[in-house]
């Protein structure tokens, strides 16, 4: 494992990626963030910690995940599509990498309790899983709107031994769950670690989460070279907070010939105002401890985001993505709910793989780019798509969207 980010695009020692990032936090938490930063850097420099992490990832989470050439899909769309199968990891998404890394670090730091925020429940389930694995107490904060929408995931967390606390304040969704987790942490920081769910928040979280997730790209890059003898022309990923995207982009940052394509949740369409395309349509601001792009009104109040994909439904974005967008190393474009759902159906039918709706955003965006990729890179154009999670959790949405669930001939 490489233990540092790509130098040219990495944060400075105060956690700034160019203009973005940093640490805009209550003084009460600064000591804890300093402690975390120190412990994490020390751990990553300790071959024993790195070996433990890799062993747990391999034996428990099932990494390296496969790189799969989706041949039927490729023929249909006219370009070579490679899928990084993070959906095959334990718990069904890339998020297990981040929580196992942070929980292993928690144990090393001698803390006995973890807290986490969750939107749809995926990071909550992953955190509860890691807490069970390491024998840590676990409390998950979840917006009250989301606990009602995602009762199955609430039950999964509870079965795994976690306490799920519904959050009623503000808009009662993910951003408010983060606020509540931070409030818990201010009061519990001496024995509690905050397992932050994405590559956002105050320094060192954006860098730390990236490093725990960067195996996605490190693996995919060598798999591409081994299996296909070349690098891809483009790498595509969905971007909510951006952990899976930064996880796959990092290995390619220093390959200037590889395009990095981030796809943001466009919801009903950016022009409707009902979206979560933070980089595309937000403005620079400070949210949850970092300067980044934020969906906000003219007074700097956070605006509620919208996406069919709960995992992307966040009004901020990881600061390194904001930086990569500003310096032009990666591009970020919105993908609507409709485009994502069409891609979900397409992949299901052509490859027998039901993707998470989050990941379907990446696929939809990549497929939309195919004509341009063919033009820029010729008929052999190859695009690597991060299939960050599986779609089982999204069947309720799919049933509603596509009108599924009744057998042939059954009365409506």
């Amino acid at each position, binding site marked *: 494992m490489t233990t540092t980010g790509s130098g040219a695009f990495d944060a400075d020692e*105060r956690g700034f990626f160019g203009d973005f990032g*940093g*640490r*805009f*936090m*209550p*003084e*009460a*938490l*600064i*000591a*804890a963030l300093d402690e975390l930063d120190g412990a994490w850097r020390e751990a990553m420099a300790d071959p024993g910690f790195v070996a433990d992490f890799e062993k747990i990832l391999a034996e428990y989470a099932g990494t390296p995940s496969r790189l799969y050439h989706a041949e039927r899909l490729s023929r249909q769309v006219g370009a070579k599509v490679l899928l990084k199968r993070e959906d095959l990891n334990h718990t069904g998404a890339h998020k297990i990498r981040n929580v196992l890394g942070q929980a292993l670090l928690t144990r090393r730091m001698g803390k006995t309790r973890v807290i986490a925020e969750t939107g749809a429940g995926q990071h909550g389930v992953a955190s509860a899983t890691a807490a069970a694995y390491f024998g840590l107490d676990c409390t998950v904060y979840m917006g009250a709107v989301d606990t009602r929408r995602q009762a199955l995931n609430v039950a999964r967390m509870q079965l795994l031994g976690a306490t799920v606390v519904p959050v009623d*304040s*503000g808009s009662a969704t993910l*951003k*408010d769950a983060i*606020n509540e987790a*931070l*409030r818990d942490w*201010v*009061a519990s*920081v*001496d024995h509690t670690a905050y397992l932050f769910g994405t590559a956002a928040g105050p320094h060192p979280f954006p860098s730390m989460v990236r490093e725990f997730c960067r195996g996605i790209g490190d693996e995919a890059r060598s798999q591409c070279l081994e299996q296909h003898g070349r690098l891809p022309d483009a790498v595509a990923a969905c971007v909510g907070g951006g952990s899976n995207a930064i996880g796959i982009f990092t290995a390619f940052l220093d390959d200037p010939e590889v395009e990095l394509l981030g796809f943001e949740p466009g919801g009903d369409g950016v022009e409707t105002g009902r979206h979560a395309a933070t980089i595309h349509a937000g*403005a620079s*601001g*400070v*949210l*949850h*401890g970092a300067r980044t792009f*934020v969906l*906000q009104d*003219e*007074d*700097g*109040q*956070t605006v509620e985001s919208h996406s069919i994909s709960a995992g992307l439904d966040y009004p901020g974005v990881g600061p390194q993505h904001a930086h990569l967008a500003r310096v032009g190393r990666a591009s970020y474009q919105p993908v609507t709910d409709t485009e994502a759902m069409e891609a979900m159906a397409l992949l299901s039918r052509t490859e027998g793989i039901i993707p998470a709706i989050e990941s379907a955003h990446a696929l939809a965006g990549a497929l939309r780019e195919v004509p341009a990729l063919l033009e820029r890179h010729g008929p052999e154009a190859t695009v690597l798509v991060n299939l960050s999670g599986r779609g089982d959790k999204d069947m309720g949405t799919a049933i509603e969207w596509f009108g599924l669930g009744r057998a042939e001939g059954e009365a409506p």
Partner: protein
Amino acid sequence: MTTRTAFDRARSEGRAALVGYLPAGFPDVDGSVAALRVMVDSGCDVIEIGLPYSDPVMDGPTIQAAAQRALDGGTRTRDVLRVVEATAATGVPTVVMTYWNPVERYGVDRFAADLASAGGVGLITPDLTPDSADEWLAAADARELDKVFLVAPSSTDERIAMTTSHCRGFVYATAVMGVTGARSTTSELAQPLVARTKKATDLPVGVGLGVSNGDQAAEIAGYADGVIVGSAFVRVLQQHEGDLGAGLRALGSLTEELAAGVRRPVGTAR
């Protein structure tokens, strides 16, 4: 009058200063002006006006609900400045307590200018520490506005020294590891924190978070220069929701109780 003058006057009277907080726009803009005036008339030495924000991570349920109510009622940043102007007109030094994003969005220098012309004397910034505050430090220094940063029980001595070296007006010591909210007993973390802070600076030190009654105010007045009260005031107004007159009367009584408390400091440590 500056906050420093108010603290110095209290010190010369052998007591602590009472600092009262209320969010602008709660229960509505005019109601908050009326409430702040009652707090001034009933004995607050310094007024702290909260700028309501959608994501207040340092606030407990009481202030969260009040801020949300203010936002739902349409309170804008310019309304906050209006409330500042009305309150500062009483002659009591008035500062704004605000999370950082609304200031950054308004424009740091523009906010400093408009705050100063409204008669506001500075900012308390709960999620901005001096090491991330270059733009605010410059804007505040240009207008000699107070820069009140927080120190916490978890702050190292090095951080307390760094933080207090950037403060002007007074230093805000958070009595507990936790968020805002009235508590019935005073934290045992506050006094050692004040002692550590006073080793680093000659500035007055105010203690906030969790203070709700006169006895607590007297206890804190025994070792600190200021007693900062927020949630307890908000709670009184919430308890009389729908009857502002009764709320204001209760607010006046609580202010008087706290003002009496800071005038009978327990012990002689200060």
